[in-house]
C-alpha cells in the first residue's frame, strides 16, 4: 500500500513542513552540541545529508530483498543500524581521503552519526510508511537537507545569542532550546506552502 505522495512533494515537505529536527525531534543531541560552531555545523550537515540519502536507499533495498523474503522483521532494527554503521565507516574513510581539514573539524562527530536518531528514525519511518524506492531516496535526501538547514540556522543564531545578556541559569542549553522552539514555530508557518493533494 504505497502512499500516493509524489517524491518531489515528499522532498519539500521533509525539509520544511515536517522537518526531521523541528517537527519530529530526531537528531537533537548532535544538533545542540555541534551548533556552537558554524563551520562544524556546515560540515556535519553535509555528512548527515549524504549518510541519510545513502542509508535510506540501502535500507529500503535490504528491507525489501533480505528481511521480507526471509521473514526477519524482528531483526529490522539491528540490520538497519548495521547498515548505517557500515555506511558511516566508509564515509569516514572517504572524507579523510578527500578533505583532511573537514575530517579534523568533525572529529568525534563522524562516528557519532551512527547513533544519530535522525538517520535511524528516517529509515524506520520509511519502512513504516511503505514508501517505494524513489520516495525513500527523496525522503532521505529531503530529511538530510532539512537537518542541515536547521543546524546552520541555529548555529548562526547562536553566534548572536552568545553575546547577548542572558541570565546565567538560562545560558547554554536553556536558551538554545527556547531558540529551537521559536525556529520550530517558524517552520510550522511553512505548512501553508504546500497543498499535497
Amino acid at each position: 500500500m504505497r502512499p500516493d505522495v509524489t517524491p518531489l512533494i515528499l522532498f519539500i515537505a521533509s525539509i520544511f513542513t515536517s522537518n526531521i529536527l523541528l517537527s519530529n525531534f530526531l537528531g537533537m543531541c548532535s544538533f545542540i552540541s555541534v551548533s556552537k560552531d558554524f563551520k562544524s555545523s556546515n560540515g556535519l550537515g553535509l555528512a548527515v545529508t549524504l549518510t541519510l540519502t545513502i542509508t535510506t536507499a540501502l535500507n529500503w533495498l535490504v528491507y525489501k530483498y533480505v528481511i521480507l523474503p526471509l521473514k526477519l522483521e524482528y531483526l529490522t532494527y539491528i540490520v538497519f543500524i548495521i547498515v548505517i554503521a557500515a555506511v558511516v565507516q566508509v564515509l569516514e574513510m572517504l572524507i579523510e581521503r578527500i578533505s583532511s581539514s573537514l575530517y579534523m573539524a568533525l572529529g568525534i562527530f563522524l562516528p557519532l552519526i551512527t547513533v544519530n536518531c535522525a538517520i535511524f528514525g528516517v529509515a524506520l519511518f520509511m519502512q513504516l510508511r511503505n514508501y517505494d524506492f524513489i520516495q525513500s531516496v527523496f525522503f532521505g535526501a529531503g530529511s538530510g537537507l532539512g537537518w542541515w538547514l536547521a543546524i546552520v540556522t541555529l548555529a548562526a543564531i547562536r553566534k548572536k545569542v552568545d553575546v547577548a545578556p542572558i541570565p546565567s541559569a538560562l545560558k547554554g542549553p536553556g536558551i538554545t532550546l527556547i531558540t529551537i522552539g521559536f525556529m520550530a514555530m517558524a517552520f510550522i508557518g511553512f505548512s501553508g506552502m504546500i497543498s499535497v493533494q
Partner: protein
Amino acid sequence: MNRNSKIYTVLFTFIISFVFILILSFFNGMTIQRTEKNKTLSTMKAILNSMGIEYADDDQAYALFSKSIKHEKKDSLDIYTFSGLSDTAIAVIFNGSGLWGSITGSVAFDKDISMLLGVDFISQNETPGLGGRIEEKWFKDQFKNRVVSEKPLELSKNKTGKGIYDSLSNEIDAVTGASLTSTYLLNIINSYIYKAKKVLGVSRYEH
C-alpha cells in the same frame, strides 16, 4: 588469545551476534502468535466498532465476528456484512493516503447505504498527538448515524475542536492543528461513500 587480534575480533563478533540473534528468534517465536492474533483482532474490532456493535471483551468480539459477519469482495471493495435479528449493517474497508502514509479503516452503512453508521481505524501513520488524534472517540463519534446525502462530508468552518454530532449535517469538525490529515481523511471517506453507493446501494444521487 589477544583480544585485540584480528581473528579474535572476527570470532567474537560472530559468536556474540549469533547468540543474541538466537535469543531474539526465541522471543520472537514466543510472541508472534499473540501479535498476529492482536492484528486480526484489531481489524475485527474496527469493523464491529464502525457498525456500532458492542462487545464485552476481546473474546466476545472474536466470537461475534466469526459467527455473524460474512466477508465478500465486490469490485475491489472489501465488504463485511452483519445480519442481525432486526437489522443489517454493511462495512467497507477503506484505504487511502493520509499526510504521511496510508490510512486504513472501516466505514459502515445501513443496508441501503442511506445512513452512515460509523467509522473506525485499522492503521494510520499520522503525526502522534496531532493527525493521530483522528482515532479519538470524540472525532470518530461524529461519523455515527449520519444521513448520507448528495453533499460530500466537509470540514466545518467554525472550528471548535469539540465535534459536530448532527445527524443531518454534512460537516465534520477537524482535529485542531491537524487540518491536513482531517482533510485527507474526509477525502478518503467521501470516495468510499461514493464507491459503496455505486456498488451496493441505491444510486439515487449522481455525483
